[in-house]
């Protein structure tokens, strides 16, 4: 199939143009270990390939290198008909530097390039007119003006592509010698001087908004308010959707199992498939809501500001301002959070961020916290007569996770060799214009996040669910205590004895290595009650009657804050870092740290 490559600098509106040209179906190819995501879609007989936004062909990080290598090889590809370079018409100067580089690359392979000036509606609104013919003569290639948002000029541009009218324009070089970086920059500047609109007019609006949003005082408030809304969205708005998924899975399970009758097959479907794998599908809506809100923040331009605000405090711990969003997402689920760490410019900081994300209290820990907190803290106890003690304990657990993550980040960044630091990109971010997000790229992003989550985590979850089910189910007709899993639990009881925990907790902890929330259900089964998930208070009562010392309980809570009991997270880490040893090493390391903390709490409290 004939291919058209879509390139351009970040924030030039390329994704929306891609969506406008290709319609609703698209494929996303990810390159393991790096952040490169190349999308492709169809337009009539063409395949349009969308490359990540790039500042330059001179690469800084591994991710940029992979993206540029991909681009270079795709330009060489015989099937490639055309390179479309998208420019931000309101900021010609900066867009042109990369555009000229892309053009040189195309000319070298004797490929046609056309330039697209996006956001032309904004330029018109400011009363400016860009001389397209003049610019086209200077550049030696066709120039189109359009707006992917208001659809101005989109139909004409599509037509131009389909009729291949650009072919009437012979491949030629721009009217300036371009070899050194300085020549590229100077030519861009001189073109911008002639053709671009007044930059102060463009930047006036954004600077006005920044006066408020980046103000040390008001900006701080705005930041907290936005984060509050984000948290609300994860925990409140996502709840009905999560319940919906739960209901669908339950009714589907009921529908399927009515045909399988009673026996091993039904038990397997109920416990391993619908119970095990299903309990993880419940998190899909939450991840999609989170992606949606973060997407809104990013496309509106606020995310760059949030990174700026957080940069200084996080830099004390060897992190970057861009570590903030991944950390925040980690409170919903570590998997999308680890993927969100892709936006961190420095590979070292990105790695440290990814390694510490699992310490954020994800929502799978909530049921465990809820159970243990209700065992130890009476619900009617208040601190200073105002703050509910249970709520404060929850807050404390979240803080404990965050503080541990920051301490480990600081340790990791000190221990890492400094020789890498030389070539590291320092913290510089462009503050883009504030723009109203468009639903199309957001829609794709949200759908994609759900798919990625399932694709990454489902196979591992499935295998572990089946494995644990088999161990817990056989020998047939045995209680959980007498099952293989029970035997393992008794066998490893000495391991948990120093923590003050008996074999029942041992099994529950073992089972929760699949996913933490399994702990509550497993413990419920071991305490001989059905449906413990729904009846946490009942189980808490049982545990209280059984007598669990305070120190042991605190130890168990700390264990759950720190331990990386989530195989799906390990799988994601492995995919994102391309390093299996590191990922499983982290799994072991957090396990050991959790164990030590629980031991200390049990011994000294």
């Amino acid at each position: 199939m004939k291919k058209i490559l879509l390139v351009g600098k970040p924030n030039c509106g390329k994704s929306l143009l891609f969506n406008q040209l290709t319609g609703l179906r698209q494929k996303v190819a990810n390159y393991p270990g790096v952040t490169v995501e190349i999308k492709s879609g169809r337009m009539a007989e063409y395949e349009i390939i969308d490359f990540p936004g790039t500042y330059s062909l001179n690469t800084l990080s591994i991710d940029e290198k992979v993206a540029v290598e991909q681009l270079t090889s795709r330009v060489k590809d015989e099937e490639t008909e055309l390179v479309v370079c998208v420019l931000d018409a309101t900021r010609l100067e900066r867009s042109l530097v990369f555009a000229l580089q892309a053009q040189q690359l195309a000319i070298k392979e004797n490929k046609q390039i056309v330039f697209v000036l996006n956001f032309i509606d904004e330029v018109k609104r400011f009363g400016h007119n860009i001389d397209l013919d003049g610019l086209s003569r200077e550049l030696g290639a066709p120039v189109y003006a359009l707006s992917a948002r208001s659809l101005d000029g989109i139909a004409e541009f599509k037509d131009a592509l389909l009729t291949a009218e650009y072919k009437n324009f012979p491949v030629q070089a721009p009217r300036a010698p371009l070899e050194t970086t300085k020549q590229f920059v100077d030519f861009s500047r001189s073109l911008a001087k002639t053709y671009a609109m007044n930059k102060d007019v463009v930047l006036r609006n954004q600077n006005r908004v920044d006066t408020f949003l980046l103000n040390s005082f008001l900006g701080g408030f705005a930041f907290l308010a936005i984060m509050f809304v984000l948290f609300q969205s994860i925990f409140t708005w996502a709840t009905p959707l999560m319940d919906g998924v739960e209901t669908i899975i339950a009714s589907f399970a009921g529908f399927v199992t009515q045909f399988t009758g009673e026996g091993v097959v039904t038990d397997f479907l109920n416990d391993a498939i619908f119970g095990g794998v299903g309990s993880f599908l419940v998190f899909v809506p939450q991840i999609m809501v989170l992606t949606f809100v973060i997407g809104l923040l990013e496309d509106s331009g606020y995310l760059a500001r949030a990174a700026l605000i957080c940069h200084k405090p996080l830099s004390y711990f060897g992190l970057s301002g861009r570590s903030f969003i991944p950390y925040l997402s980690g409170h919903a689920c570590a998997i999308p959070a680890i993927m969100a760490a892709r936006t961190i410019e420095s590979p070292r900081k990105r790695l440290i961020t990814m390694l510490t994300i699992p310490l954020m209290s994800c929502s799978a820990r909530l049921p465990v916290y809820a159970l243990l907190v209700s065992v130890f803290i009476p619900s009617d106890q208040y601190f200073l007569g105002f703050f509910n003690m249970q709520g404060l304990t929850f807050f404390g657990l979240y803080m404990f996770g965050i503080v541990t993550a920051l301490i480990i980040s600081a340790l990791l960044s000190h221990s890492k060799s400094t020789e890498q630091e030389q070539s590291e990109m320092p913290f510089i971010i462009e503050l883009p214009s504030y723009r109203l997000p468009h639903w199309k790229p957001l829609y794709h992003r949200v759908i994609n996040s759900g798919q990625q989550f399932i694709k990454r985590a489902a196979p591992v979850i499935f295998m572990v669910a089946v494995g644990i089910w088999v161990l817990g189910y056989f020998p047939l007709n045995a209680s959980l205590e007498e099952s293989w899993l029970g035997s393992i639990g008794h066998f490893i009881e000495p391991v948990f004895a120093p923590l003050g925990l008996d074999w029942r907790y041992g099994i529950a902890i073992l089972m929760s290595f699949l996913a933490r929330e399994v702990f509550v259900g497993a413990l419920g089964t071991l305490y001989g009650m059905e449906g413990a998930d729904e009846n946490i208070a009942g189980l808490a009562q049982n545990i209280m009657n059984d007598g669990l010392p305070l120190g042991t309980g605190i130890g168990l809570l700390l264990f759950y804050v720190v331990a990386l009991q989530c195989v799906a997270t390990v799988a994601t880490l492995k995919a994102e870092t391309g390093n299996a040893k590191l990922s499983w090493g982290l799994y072991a390391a957090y396990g050991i740290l959790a164990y030590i903390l629980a031991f200390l709490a049990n011994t000294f409290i």
Partner: protein
Amino acid sequence: MTLWELNKGETANVSHLWEHLDDSVSTRLVEMGFETDQNITCLRRSVFAGPLVIQIGDCVYSLEQKIAEQIFISTQETIS
């Protein structure tokens, strides 16, 4: 003086980049517009020596202290 010393609202010209900067970093800075004689304006400073915000060409960037100290500038007064 360096970019880090530029106060809010002040304008200066880029003079040069620190010569020991890694090539790839300095190339990127030049591509971003940090090139000799380019006009640069400090839009805001943050509390506790946080990143500063500057306008150069048609872009607004935020830079941390470490890199801002490696970009040398000359103010109008020093030129005249």
